[in-house]
């Protein structure tokens, strides 16, 4: 295809430069052999990648992050699937409001949400750190689950469900045998997306972590405050690879256009 608009090409190039430039710089600096983050790097070394696995705090917070994201995901799915189903299937008063409430964590700044959760839920009810971390992450994952599964359900003909009823299937059996298999890809996509959102989250975790319990992104912040070696660049590269891997999976399962349809 011939490009007839040099202005647009330049503009696109600049946008990509600003989007991808920092990532490239981080990736390149992660191979710096010296002890200080430097660009351009003075050589090539994988020692800071090795160092990630030497720092005990990274390993333990990585485990916490994985655990919180996975458990939170399970909770969000258990809450989110019935919610998405009800929002799509039933018509009742206040449905729009309820929908807005479920999606509000997307709209409210994380700092505000984190602070509110801390002050009015965690402190007010004396919730232990692990549990509060889990609650916070479930809350931020819920909108992704409901939105993506909702999009799946919007394309589902509920007459199919009625057909199963009329053939003798109970409501619950129909949900598991007929509805779930047809929104399977939506569920998988929502789980992956929610996992990424939770795993990379900083603002909510900031309020929900405490002495001895932290998530990987928070630990990374703390690390940067004290050290300036390329370990942080190396770990960022690994996280980017994980994210890219997930997005690749979603693209393969559904196509990314799935999220831009509605």
């Amino acid at each position, binding site marked *: 295809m011939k490009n007839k608009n040099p202005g647009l090409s330049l503009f696109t190039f600049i946008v990509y430069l600003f989007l991808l430039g920092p990532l490239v710089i981080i990736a390149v600096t992660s191979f710096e052999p010296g002890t200080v983050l430097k660009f351009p790097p003075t050589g090539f070394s994988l020692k800071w990648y090795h160092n990630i696995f030497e720092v005990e705090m990274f390993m333990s917070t990585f485990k916490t992050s994985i655990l919180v994201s996975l458990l939170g995901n399970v909770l969000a799915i258990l809450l989110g699937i019935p919610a998405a189903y009800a929002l799509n299937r039933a018509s009742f008063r206040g449905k729009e409001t309820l929908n807005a409430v479920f999606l509000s964590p997307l709209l409210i700044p994380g700092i505000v949400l984190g602070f509110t959760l801390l002050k009015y839920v965690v402190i007010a009810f004396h919730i232990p750190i692990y549990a509060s971390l889990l609650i916070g992450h479930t809350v931020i994952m819920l909108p992704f689950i409901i939105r993506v599964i909702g999009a799946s359900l919007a394309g589902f003909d509920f007459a*199919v469900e*009625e*057909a*199963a*009823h*009329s*053939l003798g*299937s*109970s409501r619950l059996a129909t949900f598991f045998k007929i509805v779930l298999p047809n929104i399977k890809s939506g569920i998988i996509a929502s789980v992956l997306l929610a996992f990424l959102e939770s795993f990379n989250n900083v603002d909510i975790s900031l309020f929900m972590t405490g002495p001895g319990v932290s998530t990987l992104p928070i630990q990374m912040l703390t690390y940067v405050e004290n050290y300036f070696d390329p370990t942080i660049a190396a770990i960022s590269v690994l996280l980017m690879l994980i994210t890219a891997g997930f997005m690749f999976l979603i693209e393969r399962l559904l196509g990314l256009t799935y999220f831009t349809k509605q």
Partner: protein
Amino acid sequence: MSLLQLENVSVAYDQQYILKDFNLSVEKGHLISLLGPSGCGKTTTLRLIAGFLDATDGRFAFGGKDYTRVPINKRNFGFVFQSYALFPHMSVYDNVAFGLRLRKVKEDEIKKRVMRMLEIVSLGGFESRFPQALSGGQKQRVAIARALVIEPDLLLFDEPLSNLDANLRVNMRVEIRRIQQELGITAIYVSHDQEECFSISDRVAVMNKGIIEQLDQPSVIFQYPKTEFVARFIGFNNFIAFEEREDEGSFYSLRSGDYHFHAAKAPGMPATMKGAIRPDDLIAGTLAEIQPGDNVLTGKVKVSTYLGRSYQYVVVTPLGEFTVNKEMQQPYANGQEIRLLFPSEKLVLVE
């Protein structure tokens, strides 16, 4: 005794009645159609019988038992949807087998029955296909097979052919009638297409605003609509308001202004002051062809349209405008004076 009975059933949403004191009874082995414009309550009636809707009031009896509160999945009724509603993630075989598996039928018995049913709907060899690989007509036949294989006590059709193209529609309705008669199943069929309803039904119920205006054999409704609504719905476009009616034994003698008419009596025809006739049944002719007299009006052609086989004219007469169809080579000119003859056996009285 009738198999199915709706007694004074009402359905309301937000204080708005969709059905009010609705009554219907269906004989065993019959196919009965509910015919009417959208919003007349025909689909509501069907969904009520299926159990998708609860009645606000009234009683639904089936086979002598009270079914009003029996849940959908315990009714053993087959339902065929307008959108087919096949299970997208299952093969044709699994779609049809679904109801049998729920009934804990043994797999080899299931196989026998599914295969036989697919033969009946002419889909032998399609069992491993998935719904998205089927055409509309094939999908609908799978849906019918799926509803039939459970040997339902009642088969319900919700505009099953309206998503198909015209030729397929005619073939499918013959198929539906054949299968229904072959298996002797009682069925209720909802459609807004009168030709479809008339061609496959034992009885047709013409519905309007939540009530049945007329319930009879198709041929009776076709010739003798009882009400103006039914008459209009099945193509009686011409109405005459009479001022006087006299019973002459085998016919009524009627008068409107200076014009006199005869209308042959028929069993069940209401004695009213409103006459109706189809455009096809009116006879048009030149002043030379039709002599003035009883059952004749003189008028001027106002609009003429070509229908393919015939021409349709709107004729202005002293009693109002009438629409008439006539097969002819050379059409009448606009403004030409012609006469209309109302055959007394075709002129019916309606409420």
